[in-house]
């Protein structure tokens, strides 16, 4: 039965998740050089249009309607046919359309996350085609496998409260693969790329934090105790991760940076995403506290060794953070918090959930990597992936969009 309190909460949560994409656009936009800021922002903003329309036309249906072999849905709900204002089937106290709208916002931000790995060199046209294909080939299947009726990963018994697999691991891994295929930015290793506007990074990071309450607490689909629990675990994981990141920085470089504080908060949010509605509050603190050393090490040591150019660390933050989050869920989940989990986590002595989590992470990585490679292959049939060297040098704002972000501020680059 519909409940006004739940509808009220889910309407707002949906709006909050939408706001995360502009938040991400500013987070990423501030991190790139001035000559690429508009292209970077556009990469996220344009997805708000593209992925929304695709979702209504086919995406929601492919993700949530019916079940084709555990991998994908069907087209019964294409163009929102049969998606009405009555309650259910996925949430019993809010209109079906509202559930679909909430899920739509996830289908927007996920491909937008990938773009962080690709900035400053990818042709905009290629990016658009890529995101179009990726949504169909990677996102809808994954969403179905994890959240859809009869989905493969859910059947395994693995859990993912708000999208650790579907959103973060999938986007992070895809970003990595695409960054490798795309190649390094001009001047990589010779030059240092400075964020051109750190306040924008902070603004974006803060909007992400704010919106993440909708993302995680909203994944309860009700204004109930579980939503409250997820709210609290989300916040405290972010807070802990911020502290540990800053602490590591202080140890390693002697200086604490605001960029570090915000990065820490964001990966704390990433890490708690799969477990927000499954793990106790103290475990959320551990999850957050440990994600920073894990990602920090990865970004500063491992990444350097391999030498790929994941420009804004989409993989280092969302991929690695998401994997850790999935593992942490397997460690600390409790069925008493949320009976969607069939077993307690490893920490409480049961290995079954943990194993399921590992398997589901591996499957996600597989689907994302294979899917991304296929998408890129197809994109190349239509257009080269990269801009020309000259265009890259001039900056993608001018070369791809004919715009300049702050035309009257002098300063070169």
């Amino acid at each position, binding site marked *: 039965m519909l409940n006004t309190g739940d509808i009220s909460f889910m309407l707002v949560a949906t709006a909050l998740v939408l706001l995360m994409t502009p938040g991400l656009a500013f987070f990423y936009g501030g991190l790139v050089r001035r000559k690429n800021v508009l292209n970077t922002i556009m990469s996220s903003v344009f997805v708000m249009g593209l992925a929304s329309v695709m979702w209504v036309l086919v995406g929601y249906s492919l993700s949530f309607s019916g079940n084709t072999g555990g991998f994908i849905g069907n087209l019964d709900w294409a163009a929102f046919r049969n998606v009405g204002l009555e309650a259910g089937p996925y949430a019993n106290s809010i209109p079906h359309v509202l559930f679909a709208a909430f899920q739509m916002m996830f289908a927007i931000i996920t491909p937008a996350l990938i773009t962080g790995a690709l900035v400053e060199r990818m042709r905009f046209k290629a990016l658009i085609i890529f995101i179009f294909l990726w949504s169909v080939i990677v996102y809808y299947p994954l969403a179905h496998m994890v959240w859809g009726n009869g989905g493969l990963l859910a059947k395994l018994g693995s859990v993912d409260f708000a999208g650790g697999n579907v959103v973060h691991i999938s986007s992070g891994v895809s970003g990595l693969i695409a960054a490798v295929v795309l190649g390094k930015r001009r001047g990589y290793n010779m030059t240092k790329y400075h964020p051109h506007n750190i306040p924008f990074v902070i603004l974006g990071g803060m909007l992400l934090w704010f919106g993440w309450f909708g993302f995680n607490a909203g994944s309860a689909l009700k204004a109930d105790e579980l939503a409250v629990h997820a709210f609290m675990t989300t916040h405290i994981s972010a807070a802990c991760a911020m502290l540990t990141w800053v602490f590591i920085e202080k140890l390693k470089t002697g200086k604490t940076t605001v960029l570090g504080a915000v990065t820490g908060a964001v990966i704390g949010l990433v890490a708690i995403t799969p477990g927000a509605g499954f793990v106790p509050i103290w475990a959320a603190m551990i999850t957050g506290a440990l994600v920073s050393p894990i990602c920090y090490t990865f970004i500063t040591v491992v990444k350097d060794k391999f030498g790929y150019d994941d420009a804004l660390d989409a993989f280092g933050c969302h991929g690695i953070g998401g994997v850790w989050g999935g593992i942490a869920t397997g460690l600390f989940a409790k069925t008493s918090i949320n009976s969607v989990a069939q077993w307690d986590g490893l920490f409480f002595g049961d290995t079954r959930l943990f194993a399921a989590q590992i398997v589901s992470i591996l499957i996600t990585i597989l689907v994302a990597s294979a899917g991304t490679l296929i998408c890129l292959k197809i994109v190349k049939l239509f257009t080269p992936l990269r801009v020309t060297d*000259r265009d890259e*040098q*001039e900056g993608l704002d*001018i070369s791809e969009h004919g715009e300049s972000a702050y*035309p*009257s501020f*002098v*300063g*070169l680059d």
Partner: protein
Amino acid sequence: MKKIEAIVKREKMEDVKAALNKLNVNGMTIYQVMGCGNQKGWTEEGMEDLNILPKVKFDIVIDDKMAEKVIDAISEAAYTGDIGDGKIFICSVEQAIRIRTKERGNDAL
């Protein structure tokens, strides 16, 4: 030594830099300026205010012998044939010092 001051269109910055590098001229100072010539800023895209357009200025201090070559290289690289292509001014410099080594004169360039 000569100082060559070249004021060119913004979009020509990379080309001018490339042209200088080809001549093995690595020393240069670049900054963004606003300016108008006879063009008076009427027609071009990108004008900021009535009659005043953003440009890029290069200051290059160079051995006398190289001066003409540099001028030619810049003239060519910055040329479009449209109004607003820019100007080059030359004046003489008495001394140059490289701070790191205290070298003076042509050695410092």
